[in-house]
Each structure stands twice: as C-alpha cells, then as structure tokens.
C-alpha cells in the first residue's frame, strides 16, 4: 500500500513524486519506460517569459526543476533586459540527455520513493474516490491518493504527412486503455494537438555566416540555492525561411495533415506549425528559425520554428531552402501529435478532480503545454495529495502571489480552449510576480508545507536579512551631491529617482549580489505602481477570503440572474473571487452571493455550527 501513486515520470510526475516522498509519503512512480524520465520531446530549452518565473517559483517552494536545469544547461541568458524587472526572465538551452539522467538518478535515490516501469490501464475506483491503480501486467497498487501525470500519452497518435501511428513521443505506445476508462468514468475529455520540429545532424549544418545568439558569460542560474555555474555558453544560431521555403509549403498543402482534415485536435495559437504560419501570414517573406543544440557532444540540432507535420520527404526539401541547412540531414522528422486531455474546469484549485476524490491531475493531461507548466502543477499536486491524506488544508496560491496561482486559477476557473501556456500577460499583478522575488513570495509558504530543505531555508534567511538591512539603512544614508548630480539626498530618495544601488555600497550599505541589489532598487523605483497594485490585491483578497461551501444550492438564491445561476451551478467556484472571474456572473450576482456567504457564516455561529 502506497500513500501516493504517481502515473508518469515527465516533468509533472517528477515534481509530484519528489514532493510527496520528501513530505514523508510512501510514493510509487509508474512510467512507461525508465528512459523517458524527464524527457524533453520538444525544444531542448527551459524558461522564457512566464516560464522562467514559474521555474523560480517551483524552486522557491522546494521543487527540483531549477536545480536540475542549473546543473545541465548548455547556455543561459537573461531575456527582456531592457523591458523592466517585472518581465525579466532567464532562458536556458538544456543538455537534454544530462537532464534526463540527472532526474532519473534523483528519483532512484530518493528515500521513500519507488520508481518502476509499468503501464497503468485502470484506476481503481470505489465510492466516488480513487483507491489505487492496476497495470497492464496485472499488478494492483492500493494508494491513498493518485496523481495522474500522463502527459500526451492518453489516446495519442503521431502524424507525419500521410503516416499515422498510434502512440506518443519517443516511440512509446499510447495509454489507450486508461483514456477509455476515464471516458467511462464520465470525465470530460478534450482533443488537443501540438507539434515539433525536425532534428538534424549537427555536422550537416553550415553555421558559418549565421547569426549566433550567445549565452551569458557571467554565472547565473534559476535556483536560489546551489552553485551558480557558467556553462560553455554554446551558441544558438539564427536563420530564416525563404520565399522558396514558402513556395514549397504552398505546393504541398494538399499533403499537410493540418489542412486535409486529418488533424482534428485544437493546436496552440502561440506555437503554430510552419505551414500554419505561412498560410496565415502570407505577407511575410521570412520566418525566424533558431538552431538549438540538443547535447554537448554536438550530435543533434533542434530546428526551432519549423514545427511541422508535412511528409518527411517534404521536410527534407524544406530544410534545403533555409540558409545554413542546404545539406542538413534529418535525424528525426518533425511531427504533429494529437492527444486526449481532461477538461481542467473539472478541477478544484487544489488540482484534485471535482468528480473523483483523491485523484489529482497535473501537466499536459490538464490541457497545458510546456515543461515548466507541467512541473509547477506536478509540485502542487504532489503537495496537495499528501495534504489530502492528512486532512490538511490544500496549498492554494493566489493570482496575486504566483504565476502558479494564475495558472491553476485560469485552468480551474476558465478551462482551456487550446493548449495552455503561461504568459506574463495573463497576470493581473505582474509587477509583483517578479523572478527576482519568487523566494520572498513563496519560500515561507514552502516552509509551512514542510518541503523546504535546511539549506534552502538558511540561504533564504540570509537573503532576507541582507535585503532588510539594506532597506533599513537606506533612509538613514546620506547620498552626497557628487553622486546625485544635483543636491545631496537620502538613500531611499536616491533610488526612487532611479539611482543605482551599487553606488551606495561605498557609503556603508551592504554589498548585495546584483539580483538582490536590483530587488532593492525595484522596491523604491516602482513604489507608486506597486502600491496601486497592492490596493487591487487587497480588494481581491477580501473576495478570495469568502469561501463558498461546496454544496451551496444556487437555485435557492432566487436573486441570482438565470445566467449567473447556471454558470455557478456548473463550475462550482470555491471562492467569491473565483466566481467573479466566471463569464456570465454579474456584479449584482456577486453581491447577492457575498451577502449570502457572510449571512451563512453568522447563522452557523449563532446556532453553534448547525
């Protein structure tokens, strides 16, 4: 008997399993193959806007992704440097083999965690709750909670031109039996589509004459702990499609599964295939291509920007029309993959299914895309699965607190119309959700959950102390006129006016690492904006603080509009705040609900909890 069984060992499964085991739960991870633990079947890169912040948040809570990325990256750089700290973020090219090996090693060596191969064909269900799993080979494992993190393997099929194959990435078979059972259980499934680009033999590309995009020289990393490494800074190279590429695509549209009706799943608008780009943006004569190294031995290159499901022969011809790739040899063709995923609007904010108790779901099976999104959900699902066993309140992060909170709330409240990825544009409180303050936002929450190691706690306290010391000293520091190019002023005013912290170190302020110094600068320079955001957060918090009892009978609230009543009944929000984000729930409906909720609270108190 296990406390927690995790199905799948991708990025969601890894974080779920590690979190559960580290919280003391006896944990089993079942994966189709040990080779696929922590695999990256799409771009070999982590981070970027929104995603980089997610990795920082995962790390701040005690997750694994940031540490693994820092140990295995080929190059890392800061994006959005000139666009303000709220959107500044890291992106890394990853040595995907090293990353996979490291993750497998960590799982195998984690105490309280068993990792083994096995295809789950059935969830064992009784009395509306999930009680365990059964594998294809007939083994049954009882479990206190199950985390479903099957990625794109539910009912998946891979499409390359006219060729169709049931199965998932890496040549694995699809988990078809499990998909069938989920439908039989009455869970709503959606059909999504995504795709990847061809890989080529690195030595067959001619990189001379292409624009290199170098990594940073200075050491940097996602994680708040661990040594900051400087990798060899493998460059990514940039090239472009040509009119010849576009002509070739147009000529072969009749063989493009996306246009012949073979593919029915909904693909992401932010990650279209090259045939889609060419057709939708006919006025453009070129599209960007990035050549991303997949490993440090220089064997394979990922041709980012050329996601396609055109026939393999056409893919070869396409590559030949792109500068630098004239003689490129494909090692693996690009493909489209269609898969089933669950409708995430059937989830609670704890990532527990609202249909079946003790069933948690995380990652692409929830309709998201992206390694970072998956890892973030995995971490929360793992934590909450364990908390479910002990009857503790689940960890719910607010939209104002973390991108993790934005993501889970978006999924649970609005569902997903296309594969979901985080975007900084989704965050209403973006100025607060910086990658540089993720630990200040979340490490205390992680500590309360019990997932933060002593090492991380100590590092956090040290950063906190340094920050507080600086904040305290600043108003009492006199900045001489020589520094201000004007009149002498106080340290806080100097920063407010856009001054740089490192110039104050000579005046007796602590010498902070550059990211922390930036954090101090932001707190003053962005003060007015942050305060305005704070006021909106306060308003949100009052709404989120009003919890809606799960069994509330909306039909008894006749003051509700019909549309509002229907939506509330269907989606069953957990808080007033969540209700406010549902389409069709009017401000008047919210007032009625608010009054009803505060009223219920009092009545219950008076009657001694009736």
């Amino acid at each position, binding site marked *: 008997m296990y406390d927690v069984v995790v199905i799948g060992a991708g990025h969601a499964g890894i974080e779920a399993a590690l979190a559960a085991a580290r919280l003391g739960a006896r944990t089993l991870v079942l994966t189709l193959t040990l080779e696929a633990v922590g695999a990256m079947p799409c771009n070999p890169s982590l981070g970027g806007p929104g995603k980089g912040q997610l990795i920082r948040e995962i790390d701040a809570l005690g997750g694994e992704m940031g540490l693994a990325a820092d140990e295995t990256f080929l190059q890392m750089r800061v994006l959005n440097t000139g666009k303000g700290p709220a959107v500044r973020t890291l992106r890394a090219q990853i040595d995907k083999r090293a990353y996979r090996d490291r993750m497998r090693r960590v799982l195998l060596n984690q105490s309280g965690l068993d990792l083994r191969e096995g295809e789950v064909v059935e969830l064992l269900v009784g009395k509306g709750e999930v009680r365990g799993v059964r594998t294809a080979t007939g083994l049954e494992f009882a479990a206190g909670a199950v985390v479903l993190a099957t990625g794109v393997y539910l009912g998946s099929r891979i499409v390359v031109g006219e060729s169709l194959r049931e199965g998932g990435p890496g040549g694995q078979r699809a988990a078809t039996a499990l998909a069938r059972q989920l439908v039989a259980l009455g869970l709503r499934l959606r059909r999504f589509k995504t795709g990847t680009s061809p890989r080529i033999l690195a030595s067959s590309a001619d990189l001379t004459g292409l624009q290199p995009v170098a990594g940073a020289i200075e050491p940097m990393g996602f994680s708040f702990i661990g040594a900051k490494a400087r990798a060899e800074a493998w460059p990514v190279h940039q090239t472009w499609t040509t009119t010849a590429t576009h002509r070739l695509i147009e000529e072969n549209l009749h063989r493009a599964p996306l246009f012949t009706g073979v593919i029915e799943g909904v693909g992401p608008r932010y*990650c279209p295939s090259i045939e889609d780009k060419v057709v939708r943006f006919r006025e453009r004569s070129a599209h960007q291509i*990035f050549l991303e190294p997949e490993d440090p031995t220089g064997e394979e290159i990922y041709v980012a920007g050329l996601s396609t499901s055109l026939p393999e022969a056409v893919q070869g011809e396409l590559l030949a029309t792109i500068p630098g790739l004239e003689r490129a040899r494909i090692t693996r063709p690009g493909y489209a993959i269609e898969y089933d995923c669950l409708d995430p609007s059937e989830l609670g904010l704890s990532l527990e299914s609202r249909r079946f108790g003790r069933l948690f779901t995380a990652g692409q099976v929830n309709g998201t895309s992206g390694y970072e999104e998956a890892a973030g959900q995995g971490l929360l699902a793992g934590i909450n699965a364990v908390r479910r066993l002990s009857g503790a309140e689940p960890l719910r992060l607010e939209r104002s607190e973390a991108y993790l909170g934005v993501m889970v709330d978006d999924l649970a409240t609005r569902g997903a119309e296309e594969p979901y990825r985080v*975007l900084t544009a989704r965050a209403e409180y*973006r100025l607060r959700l910086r990658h540089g303050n993720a630990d200040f936002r979340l490490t205390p929450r992680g500590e309360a959950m019990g997932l933060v190691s002593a090492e991380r706690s100590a590092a956090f306290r040290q950063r906190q102390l340094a920050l507080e010391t600086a904040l305290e000293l600043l108003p009492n520091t006199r900045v001489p006129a020589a520094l201000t190019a004007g009149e002498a002023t106080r340290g806080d005013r100097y920063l407010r006016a856009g001054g740089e912290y490192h110039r104050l170190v000579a005046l007796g302020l602590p010498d902070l690492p550059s990211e922390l110094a930036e954090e101090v600068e932001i707190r003053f320079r962005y003060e007015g904006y942050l305060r305005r955001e704070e006021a*909106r957060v306060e308003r949100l918090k009052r709404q989120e603080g009003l919890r809606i009892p799960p069994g509330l009978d909306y039909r008894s609230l006749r003051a509700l509009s019909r549309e509002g009543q229907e939506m509330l009944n269907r989606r069953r929000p957990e808080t007033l705040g969540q209700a406010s984000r549902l389409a069709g729930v009017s401000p008047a409906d919210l007032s009625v609900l*608010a009054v009803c909720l505060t009223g219920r609270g009092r009545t219950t108190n008076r009657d001694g909890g009736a």
Partner: protein
Amino acid sequence: MAILRISGPEAWTAAGRFFRPAKAQRRPQAGRFFFGHLYDEVGREVDEAILLLFAGPHSYTAEDVAEIQLHGGLAVVEEALRLFLGAGLQAAAPGEFTRRAFENGRIDLSQAEAVADLVAAKSAAASRLAVRNLAGGLGDRIRRLRADLKGVLAGLEAALDFPEEVAIAPAGSVLAALGGEVDDLLAGYETGRRIQEGLRAVLLGRPNAGKSSLLNALVGRERAITSSQPGTTRDVIEAELRCEGQLVHLVDTAGLGAGEDPVEAEGQRRALAEAAAADLILWVVESGREEVEAAPKGALVWEVRQKSDLYPGDTRGPWPGAARLFRVSARTGQGLLELRSALALVVGAGEGVLLGNERQRVALLESRHALERAAAGWSSQSPDLLAADLWEALEALGEITGETGRPEVLDEIFSRFCLGK
C-alpha cells in the same frame, strides 16, 4: 462642497501626503477635525480643506478612514482625485464603502441584505442608463477607444512575452490622441452634468446692487425679499429657473463689502464659497456706479449692469475679468430676455455624447491619467510600467461598458503576430 473619503489601513498616512494642517503641531487623532490645506506634489496649494479622522472599527467601513472636505469646484475635486489616484490610491467602486462595512462586520445581515438589494437595484438603474447611453453613442466611442488601446497593448504585450519575435513599436502619438479623445468625453460630462443637474449661477456683487431684484425678475416671483436698504440679503437664497427648457439654479448672496458684524461677515463668507462652487458668476453692478472692487476669480464671470433704465448714459465697457456684459433692468424687464437666452446657451445644446454619472467620469479620469503617464513615458519609461498604465486605462474604460480586457488582448496578440518556435 465635496468630500473625499479614504478608507483602509493606510488611510491616515495617505491623507497626510497632500494635506497639511494649519497648526502644524497638532497630531492626527481620531474623532477630531483639522483645518488646513491640500497641496499638490510640488507644494502648490490646491484648496482649503478640513480633514476628519476616524479610527477603525469606529468608522463607517470599520477601517481607518480619512475624510477630506473641499469647497472648491469640480476642478479642485478633479485635481485632488488626480493627486490621490496618482499616489497609488484606488478609486472606490460603486457601493464599495458599504461592501467593506459588511465585509468587516460593521453592519449586520439584514442591513447587508438591504445593501444587496440596493446594489442590485442600482445596477439595474445603471444598466438602464447604460443602455440609453450605449444607444446614444457613448458605448460606441468607448469601444472605439478600447479597440485602439487594445491594439497598442497587444503589441506591447507580444513584445514582452515573445521578446525574440516581436519588437516594441512606437505608440506615443497614438496614446496622446487617445488621451485627447478621453478629454472630449470628459468635457461631455460637464455638459451632461449641467443638463441633468442644471447650471449653477451665483449672483454676486456689492450691497444694494440689485441682485435680489434681478433674481425675482428672472424667476418671475418674489423669491427674495428686496428693499432699498443695503444688506437686506444676509444668507444664500436659491431659486430654480427654466431658460428655454434648460435648468438654471440661481443663487442670491449677501453683498460683498458690507458691514463688519458677525452675521454679515458670515453671509459674505458663504457668498464667496458659493461663488467658488459656481459654474457661472453673475457679477451684478449698479449702473452708473464706479466699481472699484473686482469680482472674485472663479468660473465664468459675466457682468450684469443692473438698474440700467435709471442710467441710460452709462456706456462703460465690461469689467476686464468678465466675458460678457448685459445691461438689464429688473424693474422694466429690459435686457432680461437676452440674459435668459444666454444662460440657456451656457447650459449646453445637449449634443454629442454625454456621460451619465460620476462613476463613469471617475473611470474616464483614471483612464486619462494612466494614458497620460504612458504617452509621456513611451520612449523613456520601462515597458513593464507602460503596460501597467495601459492595462489600468483599458480596465477603467471597461468599467464603463462592463467589458473585461484580458482575454481580448490575448486574442489580439495571437491574431496579429506570428509567434512561436
């Protein structure tokens, strides 16, 4: 007079940012009021003001509350709002103070239910008004504004979320144009308010200039007591007047420069306060008299030369601060028709787009301030802050039409830009 109410744990501090008590040594204390002035961010005086402080839970919202009473006109209130909103305070949503009161347990269930009814009823009324307004073109203009703004925002957001694929395009001039459009709508609010609430015209002048006689002649009845004695009117007297279908509130006041006794002094103080809050000052002067004192500055000033039948030889031009001169006689009715037509014209012809209420005006103001910040900072400000301003502007406009913005902007990003590796 206007009251600004600030509620929340930082309310007192927030009020103290721009309010300075006349007696600097007085410490803030609950239940006290403080006389002083409101100053803007560079120390210019905005208005005289009275500050009242309440400590939670002994306040309406059960939070710390600061109330600032201003007696300036709309321009002063607008300036004060600009100051406080600019400093990071949030404008209250309709019914927000009441909502906070019940959220904080200040009022009980039955009261809260009454509030809910009220809120519901209010929004029903508001939506009826909105429907009227939408048909009248306000909605169209706001929607056009929002569409342009969403375009700018989508471009900026695409550049923030897809830095390797999209660069930030210049938009300062588009934003300035949008700001001008918002200004137009705000000007429409002035007209709208005057049409709904009526024009406030204050009769001001020296004792015995004939203000009360003029008021009576205009309204056609003996509303104010008149006599040949200077200083007959000692307090403020109001009368409603319809000029060609438009509503005008005529306000008669005590003569300025009258005697020194306390009642007269108070009468004059009130006269000046009325003048400060007026849309129009009718500066009443007795024909043939050499006027030494100038009319107080304030809104639009017209000079009305009363008793002109008695002094047909008075040909002096208008007092320099006055926009127009009217020669009238309350006794014979001479010139009154002309004055009434002119009043009707000031109220407004009722064309164009009209804002229905204060909430819409506050929303427009918020959006204008945010647009101004973004337009001014487009080439120098950090893009994450520009985006924050634009979202604020978009959301403020959305409050008027009841539309949200975020999903639409995301849609626009994906439809306009070719993104993704």
